[in-house]
């Protein structure tokens, strides 16, 4: 805690904004002095945080719509029929952990996974729930909080070849909410949205008929044109825009970085391992991106808002082996295995979650409705000890009876594992000092 009086708390680190007014090196980065200040502050303050950090990057698989805990990772086979999942359970090789029968591959990798069965909050709308989970703040109408991805990108600082925060296909989650966006941080920390087909990321390829040489010529032309600068002088908005162009050029001029977005460079065998689904391709792309240096990659898997026919919808009854659960099972297990084999799992935190769980009672249509009081999250890699369960819900899956975990707890933990101190203050709208998180504690059982 660093209280002090409200007006001086912004400077409790001893840095004053005017000390940075002389720093001129950032003109090319499109950053204001206050951005710089934030980095300086962060860099100084997060030394201790960095020591406890385990991961350098994070892959978040976001199950958009709210995945049913009772039909995936927290089945209640002994509950009455109106609650019990239509699916049976299978063992995992870890004593005491049973999963849904449609997650057989995941069951085999549970030794890598810490399963939180006591995620709980009270916001049952898609947008509010998503914002709570992805920012660690209850949504307020006053302003937007930055998402975890933007906070990690902010912590990474500018200048890398790879975009620090990437969203596959984009940062729309929770029904077009702003949950995964940059909030009050500068736009430079928003996600690079790769577009709807992870197998073909748009606008990364030069236009048809434009060779690399020609694109270089165009770039020179553009430089020359801007350098005439008869009319438009250097100013903060031009710097912001130039920063994106430079980021784009860095990306385009690095075949490795650009290649990271190209799934066709993967063998057919690897692609098959992840499955042919969107989420499979997304997870494979995410692995390529963190391998190449991205810090936070969100893979959004839509369609988990299962208000009806869970038995027929989650595994697609018309095509055995397909559907939401089998696709996720393929993708998730392949991702963890692949990262482990490449020696990347210890430095990559993989998080699997959605905005809330679903009602214990099956509704008249054989589906379940929104239920934020109980849900699950899976954490793997990044120093997390797998093969364990944290927390538990009651016999009917209604609410946690053991070790409740709140969205701020989860956000706090993810940030901490990635080396960002959640108690730091950032400069919010109108210059007001805002702590990254106001509440939440580290889930120490993960380590």
């Amino acid at each position, binding site marked *: 805690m660093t209280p002090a009086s409200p007006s001086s708390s912004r400077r409790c680190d001893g840095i004053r904004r005017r000390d940075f007014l002389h720093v001129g090196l950032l003109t090319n980065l499109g950053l204001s002095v206050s951005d710089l200040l934030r980095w300086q502050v962060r860099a100084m303050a997060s030394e201790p945080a960095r020591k406890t950090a385990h991961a350098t990057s994070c892959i978040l698989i976001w199950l958009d719509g709210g995945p049913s805990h009772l039909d995936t990772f927290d089945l209640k086979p002994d509950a009455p029929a109106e609650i019990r999942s239509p699916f049976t359970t299978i063992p995992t090789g870890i004593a005491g952990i049973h999963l849904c029968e449609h997650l057989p591959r995941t069951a085999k990798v549970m030794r890598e996974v810490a399963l939180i069965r006591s995620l709980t909050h009270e916001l049952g709308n898609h947008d509010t729930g998503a914002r709570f989970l992805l920012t660690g703040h209850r949504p307020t109408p006053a302003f937007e909080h930055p998402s975890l991805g933007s906070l990690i990108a902010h912590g990474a600082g500018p200048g890398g070849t790879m975009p620090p925060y990437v969203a596959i296909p984009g940062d729309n989650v929770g029904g*077009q909410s702003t949950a995964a966006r940059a909030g009050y941080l500068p736009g430079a920390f928003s996600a690079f949205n790769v577009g709807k087909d992870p197998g073909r990321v748009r606008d990364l390829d030069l236009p048809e008929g434009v060779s690399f040489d020609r694109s270089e010529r165009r770039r020179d032309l553009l430089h020359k044109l801007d350098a005439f600068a008869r009319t438009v002088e250097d100013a903060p908005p031009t710097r912001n825009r130039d920063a994106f162009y430079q980021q784009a050029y860095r*990306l385009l001029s690095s075949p490795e970085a650009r290649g990271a977005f190209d799934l066709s460079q993967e063998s057919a065998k690897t692609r098959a391992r992840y499955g042919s689904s969107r989420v499979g391709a997304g997870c494979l792309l995410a692995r390529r991106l963190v391998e190449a240096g991205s810090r936070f990659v969100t893979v959004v898997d839509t369609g988990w808002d299962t208000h009806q026919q869970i038995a027929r919808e989650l595994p697609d009854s018309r095509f055995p082996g397909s559907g939401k659960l089998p696709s996720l099972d393929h993708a998730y297990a392949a991702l963890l295995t692949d990262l482990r084999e490449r020696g990347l799992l210890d430095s990559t935190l993989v998080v699997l979650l959605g905005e809330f769980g679903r009602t214990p009672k099956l509704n008249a249509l054989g589906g379940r409705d929104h239920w934020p009081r109980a849900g699950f999250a899976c954490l793997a890699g990044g120093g997390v000890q797998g093969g364990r369960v944290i927390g538990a819900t009651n016999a009917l899956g209604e609410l946690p009876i053991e070790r409740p975990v709140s969205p701020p707890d989860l956000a706090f933990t993810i940030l901490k594992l990635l080396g960002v101190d959640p108690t730091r203050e950032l400069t919010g709208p109108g210059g007001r000092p805002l702590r990254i998180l106001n509440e939440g504690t580290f889930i120490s059982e993960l380590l």
Partner: protein
Amino acid sequence: MKNLENRKAGRLAPSRFSCFPGFLLQSAWLSLLTLFLHVHLRAERLDFPTRILPALTKAGCNTGACHGAATGQGGFKLSLLGYDPELDHLALTRELRARRIDWENPAESLLLKKATREIEHEGGRRFSRDSAAAALLERWVVAGAPYGPKELRVVGIKVEPTEILAASLEETIALRVTAELSDGAREDVTSLVLYSSNDDAVADVTQRGVVQVRGFGSTGIMVRYAGQVAATLVDSPFAGPQNRAAFAAFAPQNFIDKLVLARLERLRVPPSPLADDATWLRRASLDLAGRLPTPEEIQTFLDQPESAEKRPHVIDRLLGSEEFTDLWTLRFADLLLLSGRRGSEAGTTVYHHWLRDQVARNRPWNEIVRALVTAEGRSAEVGPANFLSLANDPRELAEHVGTMFLGTQIGCARCHAHPSDRWTQGDYHQFAAYFAQVTRDDGTVRDGTRGEVEHPKTARAVIPKPLGSAAVRTDRLRSRRAELADWLVAPDNSLFAKSLVNRVWKYLLGRGLVEPVDDLRLTNPASHPALLDALAAHFVARGFDVRDLVRTLTQSRTYQLASQTVPGNKQDDRFHSHALLKPPAAQVLLDMIAQATGVRESFTGQTEPTRAVQLIGVQTPSHALDVLGRCSRERSCETASISGGGLAQALHLMNGSTINRRLNQGLLAGIQEKKLPDEATVQTLYLHTLSRLPTPAEASEWKSLVAASPKRTEALEDLLWALLNSREFFFNH
């Protein structure tokens, strides 16, 4: 009572004192002592809400990060910044069986031992044992930790001086703050209030109320005390070269210029000269009509002789154009969040047409807003009724009304008194109560007879009351919303006019006089306070006429200044010494690219040729508009977090189809067909994209480039690509 009698006796007959037996004499002394103490304590005023609580606030005990958090800290919760004195008094004196106060040994009170960190305190040491604060709290406990008169409160604070003109950097100025209490008393509270600077790079302020000037510019210093706020404005003149010629050249065209010039002179920021004709024409066409000027318009304009009517004439033509209506419909639709996710398709269409019709007819802003707030009927048929579909919760609707029409953020006051504005929880919920009885059954907006908003503390229904007004609803025959509209759009509701003129100022000048534009409050002073007042007064006097406002703004010299800086004004980003760069809205940028290249954009579901600014709602699929960042109208885009686009936008403009597929059609195809010579070709490209003629240096550079290129078509495509990707094309400058 006995003491009192003794006192009376003593006063009536002092000479008899000596005759009194000893014990009586002692008693009289004691009573005198009590009297003395009583008077002394009264003079010191140990009242909790006006004296003790401010001391705790000042020590930082009740900030959001400490005990003021919604859940408190360490089991001890205070109201945020002390907005609820009664609750705080209870927490201090009654909770935990009153163990925070030690009645036997006041100095041993937990309250003091924690705050001075004589025992473990996570919040650290707030003040030392020998501080004035510790002594004050101890005296308060000794006196029995009184609350004081129940109704006593601070009704206003005043800070002096009200404005400061700094003579030099590092200058220090002592503030003086006086509080007026509800019992009429005035107190010097300079040492008790909380101070903060809006921009401590310009000036910061100590907690003793001493302002220290740090840099150039202007900032508000905010003062808070017992739920009241006040501010003083510090101007710190720039220390650039004295550019008398620049000031002398600035000939005011109207009241705007006089007030802008006054600020520039005070802050010693020289104004830039006028923008040249081509730049000005491009700027006005984009700002008023959302399009580039055509090459013919440019040529005609450039060829016209100079006259006082030359630019005003163009303004009038643009104001009367269909494109003006299209663009300003888009702007107001974004402001009103017209058809975000919640709107039905039919509703969106009638709402859009209704709004466009209001803009086309130049219906006064007060009438438009009244129609929105009081609308009734089927959403699928009555356009403005869709405004009420923004939210079902009356509180949420009230917040929208606050930000959209009053430029004020009342949201904080939902849960606690606004920390930097005057709104209390009561203000908030009473304001929301105006919408408590709106029903939307079967897609029809009506006023029902049931539904109330409850105050969260008392759980009782509150009576509707305008924000910041003492009067409550009286006329039970008028609908709640009609009564709200009466107050909202009244000429004397200064926030209503200020909020719109501030937004229009931002559309045209690139930065609001108050930023953010939805945060007008005493403690967030305008860059030009007198100008904001004058513009609002002008707007009211002209009957809330938006076109008149746009005309007044664009005819000022301020609007016509060049964006290029002169020595001494480069640092200025808010006093309008030079034009600010404005990134165009996504729709406008897409239209600009289509117009420049002569290749239309076609949209799904549109049979007629449609420009992007004309699209109804925001649901029309368009990868280009998504990537260019169209406002999704889910929430306000006025403080959009991405400025200058994003990585995806840069990649799209460089590599994507929006520009690349247009390079070899339309404009260039025509040039090829006409076999224009190189010089004329370069000139045509410049006129279509940058809306000006190339300079001699540019013309010769590109001419020789094209001539030297073995592939002429390719060279021209590349030049056009570079023009469309240039800063100069992208920004309205």
